[in-house]
């Protein structure tokens, strides 16, 4: 039976073309997005900058990066950076102090700078501290560039690779502000 509805007259070929265009176009974009990841990015993007506390096996006890750091009763942000990139992070930290009274520490995978704003600076050439904090290896397999947020009870509540953190300290402030 034929009805007068628009549905009955709809040819199939344009609909197949729509599906193929969506599959090809979005598939290509997905491939391009995957190829645009940098060497310091996480291989699994789901774990990079997830934006919420206690992802995966967190919270976990935060090891000391220096005597008394992190300090009980005060949140802290522990940054992990490579020697050749740490100057940009230090400049950013000098311009923008940590929010919420949080302490800052910078763990450098090599020789640390003499000073880095108000942050405690620590060398970690062997990567032991980065491993103790559970930071993931970036795509290039080298030391991680990212940070961990530690609450006032000494627990790691957030950690992520973030090679662009020097330009995104506002996002770090968002995660510190999210601490209970």
């Amino acid at each position, binding site marked *: 039976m034929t009805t007068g509805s628009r549905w009955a007259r709809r040819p199939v070929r344009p609909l*197949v073309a729509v599906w193929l265009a969506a599959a090809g176009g*979005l598939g290509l974009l997905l491939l391009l997005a995957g190829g645009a990841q940098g060497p310091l990015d996480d291989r699994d993007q789901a774990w990079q900058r997830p*934006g*919420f506390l206690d992802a995966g096996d967190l919270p976990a006890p935060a090891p000391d990066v220096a005597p008394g750091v992190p300090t009980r009763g005060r949140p802290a942000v522990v940054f992990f950076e490579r020697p050749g990139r740490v100057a940009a992070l230090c400049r950013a930290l000098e311009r923008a102090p940590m929010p919420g009274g949080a302490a800052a520490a910078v763990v450098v995978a090599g020789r640390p700078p003499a000073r880095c704003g108000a942050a405690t600076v620590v060398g970690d050439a062997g990567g032991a501290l980065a491993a103790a904090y559970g930071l993931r290896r970036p795509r290039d397999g080298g030391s991680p560039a990212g940070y961990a947020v530690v609450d006032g009870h000494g627990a790691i509540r957030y950690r992520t690779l973030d090679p662009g953190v020097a330009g995104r300290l506002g996002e770090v402030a968002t995660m510190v502000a999210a601490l209970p």
Partner: protein
Amino acid sequence: MRTAGTRPAVRICLWCAAAVLAEIALFASYRGHDARFHWFTHFFVGSSLALVGMAAVATRRRRPVPAPLVWPFLAHVGAMFPDLLFSGGVAHRRWMDVFLGHISTHYVPGRNLTWFVVFLASLGAYLTVVARDPGQLRR
């Protein structure tokens, strides 16, 4: 010379252009999160849900849904709403899964590739419903 099919074709093109521009705007809104990953997840999840809903409505009404590009866009906005909040300085919380699984959808096996397949299946389902002869639907 203008043919009978020109005007609907122009209208469809304008809808498509508007939808693409709107999605580009959503992609560009990702200052706080990484658009390369998050935009795709929430687009695929939101659009898939919209397409399944569209298929159900089209089956019931026996005709294609009106404004078919608006449904996926609105569902995408719903799915990514916590990311708009994040750009404003509000961290994610677990309860934000109410926004079409905003948190947990990132952690399915296969990640965005899985959601891409789900999206293509949903689009195929809607297009199949649209292409069906209404006489068959009555049986």
